[in-house]
């Protein structure tokens, strides 16, 4: 079991409020990603759950038990750190088994569990190597092995993939997700990368300035963002925001249209007129950055190749069903 509930959790460092009251319900076995720009408090929130920081107010419940006064080791959680934090002078075997050794398990039982964990992670040939003799991806797997061997109630991941190169990151992303589903253990994963969040999460928590902006499944966040911040943060390229007359027309202060929901027409008379400033041809997609005069710069995405170039005039027609409307406070308007 690994059901985690936050009730009004607050954290301040002196006069600076990092977390301004977070309420959250994480179901057992789900993969929850905390995402947000740097300094939004996502790592702090994770460290509060881990017990590496003390809360300034509120409750953290793990399986219904308030753990704010429980030391980290007793909370039954395990953590994968950004720097992996492997013990450099211990072998892979020693690193993975350290928690069990501290828990006072018998030697052969430790060995059995370590070897089982190593087998899951394809680390068996490296058990007697030191961390410095491993590649980045292998070190990452040792760190994960150290987390799974203790059979915790939940895994906490603190930006674990940020030190890997792009190709390895995609591979590890899949491995971590698959492992989590296989073990069925609750996972909380912190990242600043919204692609990681969208691909890995069952549910995403979008944080900004110490507040939870929205909590929901990836597609929920994509299709029904609660406010301007979430709308702009989730989705790549970013959503286009238009204020002024076209927005008033829709009865909103701001309207947002995702680049993929803008239809691109050559020499069209309707829609929003503009000149292409930059055209990016990726083969699979074409991104157009269009200077639309008073409306500002708009981004449009076309699936496939489109032979348009900088300087061409285009008109962009938003899909009326996919227009997001926001009031003057930035909150979404639902009709």
């Amino acid at each position, binding site marked *: 079991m690994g059901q985690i509930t936050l009730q009004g959790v607050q954290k301040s460092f002196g006069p600076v409020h990092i977390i301004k009251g977070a309420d959250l319900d994480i179901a057992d076995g789900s993969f929850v990603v905390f995402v947000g720009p740097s300094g939004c408090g996502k790592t702090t929130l994770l460290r509060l759950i*881990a017990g*590496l920081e003390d809360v300034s107010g509120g409750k953290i419940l793990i399986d219904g038990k308030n753990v704010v006064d429980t*030391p*980290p*080791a*007793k909370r039954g*959680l*395990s*953590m994968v*750190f*950004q*720097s992996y*934090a*492997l*013990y*450099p*002078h*211990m072998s892979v075997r020693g690193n993975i088994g*350290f*928690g069990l050794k*501290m*828990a006072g398990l018998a030697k052969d039982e430790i060995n059995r569990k370590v070897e089982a964990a190593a087998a899951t992670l394809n680390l068996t040939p490296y058990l007697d190597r030191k961390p410095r003799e491993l590649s980045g991806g292998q070190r990452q797997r040792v760190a994960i092995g*150290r987390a799974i061997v*203790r059979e915790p109630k939940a895994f906490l991941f603190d930006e674990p993939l940020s030190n890997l190169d792009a190709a390895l990151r995609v591979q590890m992303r899949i491995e971590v997700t698959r492992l989590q589903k296989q073990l069925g253990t609750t996972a909380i994963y912190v990242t600043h990368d919204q692609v990681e969040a969208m691909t890995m999460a069952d549910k995403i928590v979008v944080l900004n300035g110490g507040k939870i902006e929205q909590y929901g499944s990836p597609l929920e966040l994509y299709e029904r963002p609660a406010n301007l911040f979430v709308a702009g943060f989730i989705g790549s390229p970013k959503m286009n925001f238009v204020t002024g007359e076209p927005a008033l027309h829709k009865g909103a202060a701001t309207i947002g249209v995702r680049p993929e929901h803008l239809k691109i027409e050559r020499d069209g008379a309707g829609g929003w007129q503009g000149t292409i400033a930059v055209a990016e041809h990726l083969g699979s997609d074409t991104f157009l950055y269009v200077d639309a005069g008073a409306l500002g710069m708009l981004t449009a995405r076309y699936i496939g190749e489109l032979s348009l170039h900088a300087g061409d005039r285009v008109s962009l027609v938003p899909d009326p069903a996919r227009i997001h409307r926001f009031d003057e406070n930035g909150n979404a308007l639902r009709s």
Partner: protein
Amino acid sequence: MATRQTQFLARSLLTPAVGLLFIWMIVPLALTIYFSTLHYSLLDPGSESFVGLENFRYFLTDPAFLASLQNTLVLVGSVLALTILLGIPLALLMDQPVIGRNFVRLMVIAPFFVMPTVSALVWKNLLMHPVSGLFAWLTSLFGLTPIDWFNDVPLLAVILIVTWQWLPFATLILLTALQSLDEEQKEAAEMDGASAVSTFIYVTLPHLARPITVVILIETIFLLTVFAEIFVTTGGGPGLQTTNIAFLIYSQALIQFDVGSASAGGLVAVVIANVVAFFLVRIVGRNLEA
């Protein structure tokens, strides 16, 4: 980096410095070797004559030699052990966030900046003096007989003085190493359920292996040649109880005015230093390999 041209340039630019250092070293060494084969007494100038290895035989069979060799090893070993055993807890304390930490650090480092002669005088006359010293006053407060440090336990007294001087060095090196310990490693140990003691044994102490090696190697170089503290406090006595190799050579040359035998002693000291260095590198040097 290593084109033939840059190699040539590097070598030609280094040559003057290396050459000067070489001369600086080779002239005294050659002269010492030369003097060590002479009968050369300052009390009897003009009587220099070649005696072969006679000076070495004289120095090595002198009962003072073995005594001073033993004193040297005891002194070096004790000071090394004390500075490291006391330096680790001190460094751990100074690594804690306390008010006025910078001031505390400055104070702890201060003994290192005091000249050996000055600190030896302070210890001799203000602290360890059996009549007017602070320690004597403290012991008499409890109604005990003051210890006459330099007569009853002369070698221990010298060891304490030298330890006091070198403790800051060990503490400083260990402190900087502690500060370079990855905070996440300690947190990982905390998540793994390690107590403070276990974290120290399994995470902190292995991290300190390399700086401890550095402390041992550097301190050994200087501790083999401790002289001022002995000269100022006990003058090598009582008897030979605090005479180390460095002091013995000094007494050969400038108390007995026997330059030949002192030169032989100097060469023996060079050999001893190399033997010690050899064993040290064998024992602890592998910690330095990356």
